[in-house]
C-alpha cells in the first residue's frame, strides 16, 4: 500500500481532502476560464453563421455542454452514491450532495436554452418530445434528491437515502440518451457521434468541445467548493475544523 505513488485512501477522509480540494479549486477555475474564453471566442467570433439557422444556432455552445453535463453529473453522483453505500465513506455522500445543485442547474440551463433555441427554430418554446421530457424528468430527479436530503436531519441517513435514490434514478440516464432512437420525434438526432464523422463543421465541433470542457471544469470547481463547505459544516465539532477556521480567521 505504502509504495504506491499516492495513497488514495488517505484522501477519503474529510480532514485530508479539505486542504487538497482547496489547492485544486483555483486550478479548475483557471481551466474553466481558459477553456470558456477559447470556446466562446471560437463559437461566437470565429465560427461562421449557419446558412439554415442563422446566428441563433450559436446557443448550442451553451445548450449542448449543459445537457451533457446534466447527464454526466448525475452519473458521477450515482458513482459517489454507490461508493458511499459500498464502502461507507463519509466523503462520498458529501460529494454526491455537493454535485446535486450543479447538476440541477445544468439541467435547468439546458431546458432554458433549449426553449430559447426552439422558439425561432421550431416556432415553439416547448414540445413534448422525448428528449426534452427526459431532461425535464432529470431535473425532477435532481430536485427529488435535493429535497430528500434536505428533509433528513441526520447527515449519514441523508447520504444513504440519497444514494439509494440516485442509484434508482440512474436508470433514467439511458432512457434519455436512447429516447431519440426509441421515439422518433421532432428533436433532431445527435449531431456528434463517435462512430461516423460529425455532420457539423469541425470548427463548431471544437468550439462545442471547448465549452463542454469549460463546463466540466466549472462543475468540478463548484462541487469541490461546495463539498468543502459541507465538510466544515458536518465536522464542525472536530479538532481539525477548529484549526482550519482559526488559520483562515488569522489571515
Amino acid at each position, binding site marked *: 500500500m505504502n509504495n504506491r505513488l499516492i495513497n488514495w485512501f488517505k484522501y477519503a477522509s474529510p480532514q485530508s481532502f479539505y486542504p487538497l480540494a482547496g489547492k485544486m479549486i483555483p486550478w479548475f477555475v483557471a481551466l474553466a476560464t481558459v477553456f470558456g474564453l477559447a470556446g466562446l471566442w471560437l463559437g461566437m467570433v470565429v465560427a461562421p453563421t449557419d446558412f439554415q439557422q442563422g446566428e441563433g444556432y450559436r446557443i448550442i455552445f451553451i445548450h449542448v455542454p449543459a445537457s451533457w453535463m446534466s447527464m454526466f453529473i448525475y452519473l458521477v453522483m450515482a458513482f459517489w452514491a454507490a461508493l458511499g*453505500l459500498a464502502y461507507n465513506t463519509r466523503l462520498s455522500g458529501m460529494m454526491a450532495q455537493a454535485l446535486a445543485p450543479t447538476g440541477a442547474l445544468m439541467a435547468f440551463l439546458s431546458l432554458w436554452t433549449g426553449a430559447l433555441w426552439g422558439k425561432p427554430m421550431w416556432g415553439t418554446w416547448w414540445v413534448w418530445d422525448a428528449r426534452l*421530457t427526459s431532461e425535464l*424528468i432529470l431535473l*425532477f*430527479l435532481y*430536485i*427529488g434528491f435535493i*429535497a*430528500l436530503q434536505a*428533509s*433528513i436531519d441526520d447527515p449519514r*441517513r441523508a447520504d*444513504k*437515502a440519497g444514494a*439509494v*435514490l440516485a*442509484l*434508482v*434514478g440512474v436508470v*433514467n440516464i439511458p*432512457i434519455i440518451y436512447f429516447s431519440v432512437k426509441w421515439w422518433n420525434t421532432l428533436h433532431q438526432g445527435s449531431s456528434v457521434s463517435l462512430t461516423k464523422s460529425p455532420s457539423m463543421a469541425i470548427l463548431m465541433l471544437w468550439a462545442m468541445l471547448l465549452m463542454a470542457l469549460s463546463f466540466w471544469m466549472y462543475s468540478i470547481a463548484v462541487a469541490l467548493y461546495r463539498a468543502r463547505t459541507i465538510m466544515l459544516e458536518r465536522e464542525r465539532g472536530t479538532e481539525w475544523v477548529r484549526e482550519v477556521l482559526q488559520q483562515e480567521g488569522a489571515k
Partner: protein
Amino acid sequence: MIGMIVAITARDLKLAMRRQADIVSVLFFFIIVASLFPLGIGPEPQLLKKLAPGVLWVGALLATMLSLPRLFADDYRDGTLEQLVLAPQPLGLTVIGKVIAHWLVSGLPLALLAPVLGIQFDLEMDALFILTVSLLIGTPALSGIGAIGAALTLGLRGGGVLVSLLVLPLYIPVLIFGAGAVDATVTGMGAEAHLSILGALAIAGVFFAPWATAAALRISLE
C-alpha cells in the same frame, strides 16, 4: 420463500380489511379526480374521449401514490417493521409480500373501477378492455416503485409531499406506456407493443425494486 411472501401478504390483507375505509377513500379519490376533469374541461364527448386514457391513468397514478405511506408507516410506528428487518428471511421477500398486498387493495380495485369511469368518458368497448388490462399490468409496477419512495421517506416530516417528489418522476415511463396503450387502441393501432413494455416495467418493478426498497428500509431504521 414463497411461504414468507404469502404470509406477509395475508397479514397485510387482513390488516387492510380491518380498515376498509382507507381502501374506499383511495377509490373515491380516483372517482372524484376523474369526475373533476370533465367539469374543468367541458362536456364535449370528442374531447373527453381523447383525454380519457391520460386522465384515468394520471388519476390511478395519484391514487396509488396517496396510498403509499400506508405501506410501511403503521408497521414502523408500532415496531413491527423492526422485527421484520431482524427476521432471518431476506427483507426483499417481505417487501415483495407487502407490495403484492398493497397492489391487491389499491391497484386491483382501481383497475376494476377504471372501465366504469371510462364509460363516463365515452370510451369504446375495446378501449375499456385495454384500459383495464393496462392498469392490471401497470399498477404492480406503481406499487413496486412506489415502495422505494415510501421506504425512503419513512418517519420524515412532510413525508407525503416528499414521496410525490421522489416517486412521480419514476412513474412517468409507466404512465407513458399505460396511457399509450389505451390511446393506441382508440386510434386503432393496436396496444400489444405498449402492453409488452408495460409488462417489462411491471416485472422490473415487482422483482427488482423490492431490493432497493429493502436497502432503503434498512437505512431508515438504523
